[in-house]
């Protein structure tokens, strides 16, 4: 009796393992199926920000990220043809205005896939209060894994990317960026990630 009982227990173990395996795969496939297929994971968050070299939009000089070392840098990728960039533009100006007095804060615009004159025209129309670097041949944006605009990166004093914002900085995103990202970093109260 005992001999006929033990194989059936073994099979039950197999059955459970099989069921768990199938369920696990179903969950995995389900998540894959219903996740956002356009979502590109922000792999750079938590790593050292790639160096930037490019011409300034207005002055005949080179802009690099390393010249802002020790400061909190907010990098905003934008273009004059980008509609969503217009949505956030006033908020960018507000961020600049809010932290302009802080010597440890830099807001840097990266002009993405754009024509120089159109970019300048855009800034003239919508207002400009911070520095912009031209992204020649997409070198900067590809180095930052950018695939559309607007995208915004928050880089801490040590040059580590702390946050990536895809899409315009409006509403809650603005509050989050200012109060939960930039201010804690400037005050040195940011939680280490």
């Amino acid at each position, binding site marked *: 009796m005992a001999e006929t009982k033990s194989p059936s227990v073994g099979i039950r173990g197999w059955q459970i393992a099989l069921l768990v395996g199938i369920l696990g795969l179903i969950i995995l496939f389900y998540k894959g199926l219903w996740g956002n297929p356009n979502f*590109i994971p922000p792999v750079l968050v938590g790593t050292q920000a790639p160096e930037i070299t490019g011409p300034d939009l207005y002055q005949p000089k080179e802009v690099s990220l390393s010249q802002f070392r020790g400061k909190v840098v907010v990098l905003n990728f934008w273009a004059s043809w980008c509609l969503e960039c217009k949505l956030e533009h006033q908020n960018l100006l507000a961020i600049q205005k809010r932290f302009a007095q802080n010597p440890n804060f830099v807001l840097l615009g990266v002009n993405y896939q754009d024509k120089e004159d159109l970019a300048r025209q855009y800034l003239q129309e919508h207002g400009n209060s911070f520095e912009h670097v031209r992204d020649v041949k997409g070198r900067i944006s*590809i*180095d930052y894994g950018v*695939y559309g605009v607007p995208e915004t990166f928050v880089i801490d004093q040590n040059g580590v990317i702390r946050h990536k914002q895809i899409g315009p900085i409006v509403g809650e995103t603005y509050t989050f960026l200012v109060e939960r990202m930039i201010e804690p970093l400037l005050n040195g109260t940011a939680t280490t990630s």
Partner: protein
Amino acid sequence: MKRLLFIPLFLILFTSLSTAQTLNEDQLQQRVREVSKTLRCAVCQSESVWESNAELAIQMRDIVRERLIQGESPDQIRAYFVSRYGDYILLKPRAFGLNLLLWGGPFLLLIIGGTFLFRTLRKWVAETAPASPEELSPIDEKSRRRIEQEIRGLEPDK
């Protein structure tokens, strides 16, 4: 006369130079094509960087070309794009980590299921006692004759 001799000489020299150039260019183009066909265009997501004419794809092709000229291997170039965009940028995802489960999972389950089925079937066979002669011929004589009669009735020449 001497000058006239120089002309074909120059011509040969220049044509050979230019063919050497185009050959290298062709080879380079071929390699750019090979690498960029494995990369996904991040804006037009179902196309490869090679097929797409989006500005981002064109710029990515330029980077692939530049890095090939600098002597980087296709794997090194792919690793660069993965470090920027994640695995997402590869049209054929690597068999690694969680991806490995997606690649191998179904096959693993097939093997487990197959083994399970095989063992169960074998167990059933082993557990079922061989049939006795009485069980093998359960039909009585009357029924057997009836069946034979029915079958004969079905034969076409009748």
